[in-house]
Every structure is written in C-alpha cells, then in structure tokens.
C-alpha cells in the first residue's frame, strides 16, 4: 500500500535558522499519525510547510504521489489536505456558519455543503445552537471545535490538526480527544500534532517524536506510550 502522505528528508529554514532538519515520516490512508514533542521542536513548522504556508528548503513532500513542495498554499486544500492551525485561527468577526462555509470555499455542491454543515452541527451541537453568533465570542474549546469543523468542510483526504488541546480545560480537552477518536472510527485520516503526548499516543496508530527539528523516535502509538524514554521526557515520569 502506498502512503497517502510521504515526507522525505524535509528541511525548513527561517532565514539562516533551520527549524526542521531533515525529517521523514509517512501517513497511510485511514491512520491517525501523531507528531509529538516539546515547544520549538518544529512540529508546527512541519504542518505549515505541508500546507504551503512555508516553503521547504530541502527534501520532498508527496501527497498521493504528487509533489506538494511547489504548490501555493491556496491550492493545497483542493488536493485534499485540510489544516486546522495552531491557535485555532477562526475568523472572529464572522458567524459560526460563515466560518464553516469558508471551509468549503472551493466546493460548488450547495446541497453537499448544507449537509456537511449539518454534520458539523451534529458533531458539535454547541456550534449549531450558536450558528449566527460571531465566532470570536466562543470559548477556546468551542473555537477549537469550530476550527476542526471548518477543516472537515473541505472533505479532506488528510486532516491535519495542530495542537487541538492547547489551552483547554481538562474536560474540554477530553471532549476534543473523544471527537478525534470518533473521526478516526469514521475512517478519517489524521495527522495530529500535540504537546499532550499521553492523549495523542493513546489514540494514534503511529507516532513520531520530534526534538529540535529532528525525529528521534518512532513507533506505534502503544509502543511509544510504553517506551521508557518517552515516559520520562513527555509523560512526566521519573
């Protein structure tokens, strides 16, 4: 089986500073793959490069066999790659429904869009109750739901979630993780970037540990969860 996403020796630099120093990983269709690591490991930089917001300085990104490294950001989503960015970045002065509509910006099937908006409301009922409200008035957790719902609106082949649990209350975090589990059971392919290693690894098929721009460890979610060095470094055990 060929991988849906295949990243090889990817390098990304901000000026002279290299933030991602030659990483390789892959995501198969139907899998949940997670990149874990501390702040500054280069996880967000990696996702922003995959979606075209940053240009790689080396290496290759293949999505369904197609080279992504020269595709401009606004064309990436049309290939089937949706990105829910770190910090949520919902459009604060637009309504929740308009935010969702923007997720379907390139789609022309009105009926399908309406159906998918309804699906987002089924997944996150609070969004449906507040559909006319400005998105900036939502709580952090609700904004995260909206960001995920919006990313799903493009019917992606690969959903990239950057730090979906960041800054959320424990209850809200559980809710978000439960939703990711639900999406996984529906067959959505997900690339999950998280600082919360415990939560991410317990639902991931495959995990990669990133440290200062490099992948230092890889294995199945369960293996990494029980790996001693991971437990020490990321799960707070001595």
């Amino acid at each position: 089986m060929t991988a849906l996403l295949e990243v090889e020796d990817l390098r990304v630099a901000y000026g002279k500073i290299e933030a991602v120093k030659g990483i390789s990983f892959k995501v198969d269709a139907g899998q949940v793959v997670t990149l874990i690591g501390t702040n500054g490991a280069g996880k967000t930089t990696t996702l922003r490069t995959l979606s075209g917001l940053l240009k790689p300085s080396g290496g290759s990104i293949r999505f369904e066999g197609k080279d992504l490294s020269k595709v401009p950001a606004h064309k990436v989503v049309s290939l089937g790659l949706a990105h829910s960015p770190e910090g949520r970045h919902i459009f604060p002065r637009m309504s929740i429904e308009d935010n969702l509509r923007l997720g379907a910006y390139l789609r022309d099937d009105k009926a399908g869009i309406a159906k998918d908006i309804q699906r987002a409301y089924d997944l996150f009922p609070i969004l449906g109750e507040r559909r006319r409200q400005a998105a900036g008035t939502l709580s952090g957790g609700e904004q995260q739901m909206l960001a995920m719902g919006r990313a799903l609106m493009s019917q992606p082949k690969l959903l990239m979630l950057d730090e979906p649990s960041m800054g959320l209350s424990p209850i809200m975090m559980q809710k978000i993780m439960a939703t990711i589990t639900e999406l996984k059971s529906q067959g959505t392919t997900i690339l999950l970037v998280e600082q919360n290693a415990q939560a991410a690894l317990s639902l991931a098929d495959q995990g990669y540990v990133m440290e200062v721009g490099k992948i230092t460890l890889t294995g199945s979610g369960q293996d990494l969860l029980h790996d001693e060095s991971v437990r020490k470094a990321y799960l707070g055990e001595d």
Partner: protein
Amino acid sequence: MHELPQQLANGLILGAMYGLIAIGYTMVYGIVQLINFAHGEIFMVGGFGALTVYTALPSSLGLITAIPLMILGGVLVSVLVAVAAERFAYRPLRTAPRLAPLITAIGLSIALQQLVWMGYPDAKKDVPFPRFEGDALTILGAHIQRGDLFVLIAAPLCMIALGFFVNKTRTGRGMQATSQDPDTAKLMGINTDRIIVMAFAIGAAFAAVAAVAYGLKNGQIGFRMGFIMGLKAFTAAVLGGIGNIYGAMLGGVVLGVAESLATGYISEIPGMELFGGGGWKDVWAFALLIIVLLVRPQGLLGERVADRA
C-alpha cells in the same frame, strides 16, 4: 441661505462623495494594512476618464444618456491604474517594512498628478466638465442642483451592491476572511492575491463614480482635485472606523454634514463670528476627527470583538 434643510442637503451631497472615496481607503487598509495615499489620484484619473468618454461622444447625445458611458470610462481608467499600482508598486513591497509602501503611495500620488498635468490636453488648469441644465429642484425645503441628484442616487446603490457582495457571495466572504486572517484564508483555498487586487479594483470603481459626481457638481475637474478630496475621504474612513465599509460611508456623511453645518452656523455663535464661512470648513472637519478619535479611537463603527486566542 442658512436654512437647516439646505445645509443638511449640501452636507449629504458632499458627504456621499467622501464616503464613496473612503470605501477605497478602508477596503485596502482592511486587507493589506496599507494607507493608499495615491487613492485620491485614483479618484482624479477617474474624472478624466469620464470626461474623455464624454468628449468622444457625439454632442447630440444628451448628458443623461452619456452618464452610464462616462461612468464606465471613469471606472475603467481608475481600476486599471489601481490594479497596475497594486501589481507593480505595492505587491513587490508586501513583505517590506510598512514605511516603504506608504512612501511609494505618496510618490505614486505625485507622479499621477504630474502625468495628468503633462499629458491631458489643457489639464494644466481646471478643465470644464459637463453639467445638467435647468433650475434646481426643491426637495423637502432644500434646493438641489440636478447634477447633485447623481450622487444621492449612486451612493446608496453602490453601498447596497457592496453590502450584498461582501456578505452574500462566496468571494465576498473570502474577502472578509482575508482581512481577518490572511494565512488562514489561504488554508481555506482563498487566493488572497486575487482578493487584494479585487479590493483595489472595487475601491477604484467607487472612486470613479465619486469623480463623476464631483464633476457634475462643480462643472470642472483638475489634476489636483484628488488631494483635498482624498484627504477628506481618508478622514471619513478613519472617522467611521477604518476597515469597516459602512463606517466609511457613515464617516463621509457625518464629515460632510458637519462641514456644511459649521460653514453655515459657527459664525452665528457669539464670539465665533470670524470662524464661519467656507474658509474654515476644513478646520472644523479635522477638529471633528480629533474629537471623535479622543472619545472613540476605533472610530464610529470600528469594532473591538474579543479575539480569544
């Protein structure tokens, strides 16, 4: 001459023109955070574009039938100049420090004035613009020149069309998204470069409509007309809350009415006899701006929605 309805009507006519021009400042600022100081000249070249079309038309054609074609000509020239400015002057500087595009805009403004001054026949002084013949109409106690009806009809139509475009169409929503968060807009599949060009083009088209209104009202246009009108429209955009399209029109109308009322009534306040009349109207306009910004720094309709990160 100093009756209230008349002063209000004068203010409204002037203010609608300010508002139409202000849309261009506010849209461009809302999307690329650039004060396009050449926008006054985008307005000015629109006037010359409209006049060129009028001159080329057979004189047997009445002014009323010529107007749609004049608007078309003006819009075409303004849009072309604005889009070229964006493409060749501003886009290469998009990642440069803020000051660079700002100074470029000022340079462009001077260059456009000089180009018209040198290149347009007889434009070294003001050139005549067609006007409607006939007596003023009396509406609600105010005498309104026939040519002034143009802006009173065109401005609301333009605003309705713009409101529809921005809120009800996909591209309009893409424009709002780009102004709120350009990177995330790209993630949605929005071609933000195209949206930026569109913001310049819409602003230019509205400025051209304002230029036709200006010509019909004053009976003449000139290469310098963009300076003070542009400055006032920029003031209107800030007054209304820069980035907000309805704020731009509201700011324009408030500014126009305030100028008109100040011209008419300030001198009747005891001790203020010296400060009445048209010569002081710009002073009152900017005084109003300062007062509003002291009380409401974000402008009349400027928004401060909490963006919880």
